[in-house]
């Protein structure tokens, strides 16, 4: 069972604390990490063990000191790091303009925008949905995550994929 990470990149400490607090229920099964800027995020990602770590979800702010959020995501995509193979990506918006939006979708491959400020339930619902997609896409054995994620969809994936031990 790989160690699945959720990485939140946000330069405002209060906002970052809020995200991490809202996502605390996921810590039972996932590793939740915060980064203050692109450089710190990159350091964390490059320190991961390709054998045992996988990044399930990245929440990333756009306007930050240093590298901007979209540019970080584009650069990461080019680097093709193993733990980031199936990662779902969410961009916090509010300040992204039209050109940024196009770039975010076409080049950074983001899955969702999330407008600030968000409701805690909305954030958790989105996290649940995207991590479920991640577990299915990365072909990680889904049983351990059923209680935390969307169990119906994971049951469906078990059924469709046919790769459980049938002979029990």
């Amino acid at each position, binding site marked *: 069972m790989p160690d699945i990470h959720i990485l939140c990149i946000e330069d405002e400490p209060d906002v970052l604390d809020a995200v991490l607090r809202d996502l605390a229920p996921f810590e039972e099964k996932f590793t939740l990490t915060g980064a203050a800027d692109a450089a710190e995020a990159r350091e964390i990602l490059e320190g991961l063990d390709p054998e045992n770590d996988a990044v399930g979800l990245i929440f990333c702010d756009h306007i930050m000191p240093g590298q901007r959020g979209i540019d970080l995501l584009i650069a990461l995509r080019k680097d093709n790091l193993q733990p980031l193979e199936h990662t779902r990506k969410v961009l916090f918006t509010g300040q992204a303009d039209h050109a940024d939006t196009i770039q975010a979708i076409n080049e950074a491959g983001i899955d969702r925008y999330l407008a600030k400020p968000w409701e805690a339930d909305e954030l958790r619902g989105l996290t649940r949905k995207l991590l479920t997609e991640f577990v299915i896409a990365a072909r990680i054995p889904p049983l351990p995550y059923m209680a935390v994620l969307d169990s119906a969809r994971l*049951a469906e994936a078990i*059924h469709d994929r046919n790769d459980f031990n*049938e002979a*029990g």
Partner: protein
Amino acid sequence: MNQKTLIALVLAVAGFVTALLLPVADLSMAGQITLGIFLFAAVFWVLEPIPIYATSLIVILLQVLLLSAQGPLAQYTVPETVQPVRLEADTWELPAAAVTDEAKVRMKRNGRFQAVDVEVLESTAATATVRSAELTEETALARRAAHWQAEFTPPSYTVFLNTLANPIIILFLGGFVMAAGASKYRVDRNLIRIILRPFGTRPAGVMIGMMAITALLSAFMSNTATTAMMMAVVLPVISAAPEGDRFRIGVALCIPFAANLGGIATPIGTPPNAIALGALSQQGVNIPFTTWMGLTVPLVVVMLVFVWFLLLKVFPSREKNLALELTGTFETSPKAWALYIVAGGTILLWVTEALHGLSSSLVALIPVALLTAFQVVEKKEVRNLPWEVLWLMAGGLALGVAMRETGLAEWMVGVVPWGVLGAAGALAVFGIVAILLSNFISNTVAATLLMPLVMSFVASGMAEGFALTTAALTVAVGTSLAMALPVSTPPNAIAVSTGLIRTPDMVKMGVIIGTVGYGAVLAMAFLFWNLIF
């Protein structure tokens, strides 16, 4: 290598070597080799250092290498032969080792050694003088009568390889291909929708409806796939129920339980049934599809109703209504129609075997051939079939063949003093061991380990008054009644993983069901199965 793997390997090798070195007079060397393979496989199947189907393949490999005529062991240890020397008309001189303690010589005829009785007139350390009318100057005798190949003629390696295409394996393949088609065209989901409708919206009605459809589907498809699909359908509904409603636990438990029980109902319902049918056909007993159903369906229905009452009692619903909103329509594309017709026709032929006499394994080739011909099941689905389950079963069947052929099964049964228990008591012991064992290990493996023993127990005449079928069913059904732990069966594991059930809930219910089920199996065995065979 981790510690568990190491322990398993050490134990397995120790078991293998012990079996070979065991000083047993009444078990042939071939039997000892088979005992070694049996112990090796048992350790690997129970501790699972490698997947259970991989162990099955090792079993077949070891048998081909060590027990077959073409294997290196048989090739490099060909017994030396010797011709008897005529002293008088029918008095012959032989090497002393060519005569056994029971005054037999082993004569080679048509490539096999056969035991022939002789009269020993005189015996020294080196030679023996015997009288026999059957010997001639051309007779080839084993120089050492105790040579393992003189006692046991190694079968062709195809005997072991053929288990991979045993008729029962083909029967399962037919079931797998139909299940793949049904899943692809969402027939399973549509059946759920249609069958659940008449059960209304009262929680108790919905629950028995869900159990009925789960059992019905798992009788023809894999128990695990059925559970996964039912969970996908049911979870959104019960997640909407109020947090504290215990009825949610009942619903989440009823599905794996019904799936485990449903597997009992047909020959293709679950792999232990294949092990039972394989062992029976080795003994020349062939059970038609409908006969199996006739024998087991009453038990399944009684158990389903019992489980329903039990779960309603322990996890009552507070709600008045439980709305299952299921939408969908049957596909009407030409391929979907081909599936409906082929699958419907196959099942019809299966359940009418008594009328036309075509065996169910033969019929099973129809969906395999036609569904692939019509490309209902395409390459992608073919590759996705659970082939490893077929391999697992084949290894079990191959082990059963060797245990019978080498006399190992008979010897193992003879080791236990059954006299104390009597035939009925012995059968009851096999039943309880089947249930207990398969709570902890794979049901198929439990059936594989027990089936050769129970078969030779009955065949040896020790179980007077008991039919082979009764014994095989008791063990096969027993393994399917094990559902007390999350590890007992994959359906249980899925149900617990949802987080709706706590393990103690499952254990309590599973122990009650196992106990009542055990009583029901024995009642069926003594009062029903045994009276019609």
